[in-house]
């Protein structure tokens, strides 16, 4: 993966249901890695397989667009839809993936409950604090029942006493997780394996 003069050269394998933490300085390619996995950037060479299916392989001419990858993505900058309430944000994914209005709403309510955000389900994102937004963002990523979960600094603004609950939710999702974090505690507590990126390469 090359962006300008930046090259990301990474090989990693997450076992089904496993959790890999990716750490490294700013600009080392952590977010780019997630974007490639999500299908927001194509790779120039190499192959991305998600849950046993090839999602991106330029040599074979294979490209699966992001909406067809079974992923959940919690963004570093959260990216809640401002015109929708918290529960509507979380219901968006299930709706797009074919659930009926009522079913999507129920699933969203359950997902919000799991991160203890039921009280603010009807609030618009502008009314939520940074930590509350992150919890809704995580619930939104989990509500699509992803096979691969991509988390970019998912707890950075979250109060430390809420973090164990969120970590538990990530574990309980049963997805293969790639967790980008600056926080060694997150990595230690959640990850089976820690990968350190430096200037687009795995440092070891």
């Amino acid at each position, binding site marked *: 993966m090359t962006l300008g003069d930046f090259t990301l050269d990474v090989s990693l394998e997450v076992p089904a249901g496993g959790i890999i933490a990716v750490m490294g300085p*700013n*600009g*080392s*390619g*952590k*977010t*780019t890695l997630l974007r490639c996995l*999500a*299908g*927001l950037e194509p790779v120039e060479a190499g192959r991305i397989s998600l849950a046993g299916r090839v999602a991106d392989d330029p040599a074979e001419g294979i490209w699966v*667009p*992001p*909406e067809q*990858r079974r*992923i*959940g*993505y919690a*963004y*570093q*900058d*959260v*990216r809640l*839809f*401002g*015109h929708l309430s918290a529960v509507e944000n979380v219901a*968006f*994914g299930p709706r*797009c*993936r074919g659930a009926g209005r009522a079913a999507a709403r129920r699933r969203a309510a359950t997902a919000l409950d799991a991160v203890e955000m039921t009280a603010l389900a009807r609030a618009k994102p502008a009314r939520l*604090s*940074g*930590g509350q937004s*992150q919890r809704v963002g995580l619930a*939104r990523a989990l509500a*699509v029942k992803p096979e691969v979960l991509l988390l970019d*600094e998912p707890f*950075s*603004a*979250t*109060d*430390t006493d809420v973090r164990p609950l969120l970590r538990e939710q990530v574990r309980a999702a049963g997805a293969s997780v790639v967790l980008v974090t*600056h926080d060694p505690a997150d990595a230690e507590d959640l990850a089976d394996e820690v990968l350190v990126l430096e200037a687009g390469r795995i440092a070891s």
Partner: protein
Amino acid sequence: MSAAAPKMRGHTSSATPAPPGAASAPPRRREVRGRAVGGLWLPAGIGLALLVVPVIGLLQRAPWSDLPSLLGSARLRDALVISAVTSAVAAGASVLLGLPLALVLSRCEPALRRLVRVAVLLPMVLPPVVGGTALLFALGRRGLVGQWLDTTFGWSLPFSTAGVVVAATFVAMPFFVITAEAGLRSADAGLVEAARTLGARRSVAFRRVMLPQVAPSLAAGAALAWARALGEFGATITFAGNLRGRTQTLPLATFEALEAGRPAEAIALSVVLLAVSVVVLVSLRDRWLTR
């Protein structure tokens, strides 16, 4: 990767509610403002008077009690209907044709964007009479495209109601395109990405995430385009002529009334157009008046 991580929220921060930017006391601006204006009052006042006095003059001469009967006359009713229909259709066409154009402008590479934008902006700065003349020679019966329209469909645009719509769209659409493009370009593309990773196809992401974001810009652009279409004079009279009941819009009827020595009619029509302008301005107040 240069995105800054959101600020850490410590335990203590929740106890002390401190809205961002409230840390320092607001500076005392009052004296500063008074000093800044100073001697500018006189030229500023003259400038303002130039803009305001004509409107006052119009309102002061308006035949308020005769207004309903004046506007009810067949001639003015015709003009009202023609204007209402053609300006609405022109605004609609500006949105339908202008939105794809604004999307292309907001997404294409800078070199091409500059070129396309020149083409879009030209009708805004071009004298409307020139626009009308150009339309006449392009879409007239012997024009570049007009010839083809005439032989293939038997359509003739000049001096027809459809011609009024074409002239109005020509001058009005740039207002929509420019406003919509600005909205599209300032919209958050990250939200569209978020929608796509949640399972939304490109078109669904656009409809359910992009459009709600840019809806205020689109509405403002449509209102501007409509107001411009309603006021169109030069291109219309050049391209479509001044035929009562067919191409005579409110501005054309106003001009004709003055020429024919019926000032009361001209004032009545002007009051109608002024009222519409005020309504448009008020509907756009969030954009312009409160900033």
